[in-house]
């Protein structure tokens, strides 16, 4: 028993030793391959391992893997086991690529295998891209010829069909395109090589559980396995005939190989070979027509589908400078992602911030649907009654092929005066450029007694004003009138006197002449002087009391009498006066008389 125990211990020790020298390495079938050829990458671990994680292969396409295999060897009584994870890769790009190491956990230790470089060179002979035989090491002419008939066989039994739920659509109307693989052959592996790029469309992939699941169906009377590989919702962005590129897929097909029974095993199991095959979907053309221009509403912004609109406000009565939350929600089916923020004519005194947009859109086999919400933050700055006007939204209804208009209800808002005057003042001061006087107070009231008057009563334009003006003018006119009549009567008298003056003077002169004839010289001069005085008194309207040489002179001047005549008058009067008091013998009375006579005649002529 003890012996057996020792043996067992020994065996365990060997295992323990073996476990210490764990090896995890990367092995390649070849270090240099051509584009399109295959490469087998094996990760070999010489003990048990778990949690294998393979690397990503750049420049290669994974055809299969990781495939796990275990082996056990007993060499010289030493037992060793190994696990191999292998990949079949197809070279896609030429150049030197690094096959990265894989990761594995072995007995609680994380191991990473080594990196290996591979040179991929250009394909030397033009191998058909559609089909490559599995045996890339001994690829020869014979195999190529043999591959041909199998390809023909595949074409009928493996293909991709593309379906569109409609081939005629309006701009903005959603289309759902479905790619389905029909197969009657065994597909070992597949991968999408090239996706269509949907030029002219906005595209959104539809994720669904049914994708990739095989279903039984009949096509042209033949039973097929069908799998949906891709479903996409498309929204046309431009008009015209839009072509959707084909989808290209690489498939590895396992075919029964009857031509080359190589060994007894092959014959027994029926030889299989994996054929690499590329399948292409058909092209599809969608005719996109523009939206009808007739009846297009002004506020139409491109929404197509079926929508509803709603709006809510969080409060309708508040104080100035408080915020209101205004929400507009669009929901429905169609291109809801394209719905733009509505233009709302908020009352001009509101401070409005840019809306916050949020959307919840789901894409499924029935199309695009969801909601889009725009949230506005608005702040009324002044008190008053305001109305957020109704909101109008137009869309093109696909079902009825017409434009539809939706309206929300208007919201009246009652804004009260802000109690917080400080913010209001601050707001004001922000708006004002210069407030020099802020902080000062108004001047005190006027306390002096001032006469209170009737409103809008002024002396100007009042009856008193007009009365005063009228009275003054009347007084003036009356004064002028009286003055005129008085003067007229007076001047009439004077005129008459003046006219008679010459006659009276002539009479006086006659008296004087009689005195001269009788030789009474003194009396002659006296009469002559009196005659002249009388004459001028009447003629010039000078009262007798004021008569003098000077007053006569000024009187004559008034009538613009020639200076010579005035001199003459003065001379004659002086002669008469002198001769009256001191008789001058040298004077000739006759001459004086003639002078006086001429003087009167001349004055008569002048005035």
């Amino acid at each position, binding site marked *: 028993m003890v012996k057996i125990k020792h043996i067992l211990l020994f065996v365990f020790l060997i295992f323990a030793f073996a476990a210490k020298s764990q090896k995890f390495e990367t092995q390649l079938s070849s270090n240099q391959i051509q584009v399109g050829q295959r490469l087998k990458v094996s990760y070999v671990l010489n003990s048990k391992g778990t949690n294998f994680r393979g690397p990503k292969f750049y420049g290669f396409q994974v055809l299969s893997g990781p495939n796990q295999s275990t082996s056990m060897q007993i060499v010289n009584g030493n037992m060793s086991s190994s696990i191999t994870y292998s990949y079949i890769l197809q070279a896609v790009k030429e150049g030197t690529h690094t096959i990265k190491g894989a990761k594995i956990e072995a007995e609680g230790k994380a191991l990473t295998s080594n990196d290996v470089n591979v040179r991929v060179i250009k394909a030397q002979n033009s191998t058909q891209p559609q089909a490559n035989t599995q045996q890339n090491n001994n690829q020869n002419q014979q195999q190529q010829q043999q591959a041909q008939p199998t390809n023909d066989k595949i074409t009928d039994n493996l293909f991709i069909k593309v379906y569109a739920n409609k081939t005629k659509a309006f701009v903005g109307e959603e289309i759902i395109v479905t790619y389905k693989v029909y197969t009657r052959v065994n597909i070992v592996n597949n991968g999408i090589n090239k996706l269509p790029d949907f030029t002219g469309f906005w595209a959104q992939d539809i994720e669904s559980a049914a994708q990739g699941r095989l279903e039984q169906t009949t096509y042209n009377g033949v039973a097929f396995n069908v799998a949906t590989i891709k479903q996409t919702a498309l929204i046309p962005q431009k008009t015209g005939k839009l072509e959707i590129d084909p989808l290209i897929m690489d498939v590895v097909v396992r075919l029964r190989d009857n031509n080359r029974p190589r060994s007894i095993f092959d014959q027994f199991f029926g030889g299989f070979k994996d054929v690499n095959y590329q399948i292409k979907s058909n092209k599809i053309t969608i005719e996109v027509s523009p939206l009808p221009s007739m009846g297009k509403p002004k506020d139409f912004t491109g929404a197509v589908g079926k929508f509803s609109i709603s709006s809510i406000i969080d409060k309708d009565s508040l104080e100035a400078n408080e915020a209101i939350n205004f929400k507009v929600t669009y929901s429905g089916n169609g291109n809801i992602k394209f719905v733009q923020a509505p233009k709302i004519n908020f009352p001009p005194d509101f401070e409005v911030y840019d809306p916050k947009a949020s959307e919840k859109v789901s894409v499924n086999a029935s199309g695009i649907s969801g909601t889009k919400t725009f949230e506005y933050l608005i702040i009324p700055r002044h008190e008053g009654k305001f109305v957020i006007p109704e909101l109008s939204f137009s869309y093109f209804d696909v079902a009825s092929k017409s434009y539809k208009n939706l309206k929300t209800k208007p919201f009246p808002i009652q804004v009260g005066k802000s109690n917080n005057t400080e913010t209001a003042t601050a707001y004001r001061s922000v708006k004002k450029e210069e407030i020099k006087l802020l902080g000062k107070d108004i001047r005190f009231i*006027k306390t002096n007694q*001032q006469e209170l008057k009737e409103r*809008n009563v002024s002396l100007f334009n009042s009856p008193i004003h007009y*009365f005063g*003006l009228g009275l003054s003018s009347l*007084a003036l006119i009356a004064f*002028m009138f009286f003055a005129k009549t008085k003067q007229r009567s007076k001047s009439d008298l004077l005129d008459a006197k003046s006219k008679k003056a010459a006659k009276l003077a002539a009479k006086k002169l006659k008296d004087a002449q009689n005195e001269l004839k009788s030789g009474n010289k003194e009396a002659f001069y006296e009469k002559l002087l009196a005659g002249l005085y009388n004459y001028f008194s009447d003629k010039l309207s000078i009262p007798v009391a004021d008569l003098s040489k000077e007053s006569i002179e000024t009187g004559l001047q008034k009538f613009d009498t020639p200076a010579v005549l005035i001199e003459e008058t003065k001379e004659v009067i002086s002669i008469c006066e002198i001769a009256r008091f001191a008789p001058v013998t040298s004077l000739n009375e006759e001459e004086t008389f003639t002078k006086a006579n001429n003087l009167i005649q001349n004055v008569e002529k002048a005035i």
Partner: protein
Amino acid sequence: MLKKLYNIFLVLALLPLASLGQGEYYNNLMEKANDLYSQSLYDSAITVYSEIEGSGLESFNLYYNKGNCAFKFNDLPTAILYYEKASKLKPNDKDLIHNLSLANAQIVDKIEPLPPFFISKWIVESAELLHSNYWAILNLIFFIIFCLSAGFYYKVSKPSLKVMGFYAGLIGLFLFFTTLYFGVKKYNLETNNSNAIVFEPSLTVKSEPSENSTELFLLHEGTKISILDSTDAWHKISLPDGNIGWIKSETFRII
């Protein structure tokens, strides 16, 4: 004619007498209101001022003091309205100018007035030197001087005196027309009812007298506007900066 004149004289002579008792009552009210204001009881003071105003009487002090009350309440549009009313009666009062500019500095709208033509500015400033009553008295005096000069000119026969009378009359006539012109200006300024103050906290001015017309600009309470034209419910207004638009009734009060 004479009897009519006599009646007018009688009425004019008795008018001040008749309102004397009434005037005494309101003068006392004024004093009472001023006392209330001094005790910071603006609420009661403004009620009393309004009572005096309701009687149809007015004075510069009344409007000025009421404006002060409203200002103390922070009721800027009312304060500005009454300051402007006071300004019509006595535009050059220093305290009034100070308070009005203080009130105007706190309203929202800041309007740059168009610079007036300097001559018209002089004319208005000259016209505002005197109350229209004094212009009327001066007007009468110069007319009487003219009449006397004309009479003198007519009466005297001496040429030098006549010349003197002629020039005196001419100057009198010129001054008569000058005072008449300024008097009319001042009288129009006093009785002008086309200026108003906006009382709506936020007032949208439209391009046409209709609810649906374009919104031109926004006015706020306390802004002074001129009423140019009126229909039943709408008024055409202009701002000192030359902007013109239409607003609804009951959004403003005439100064």
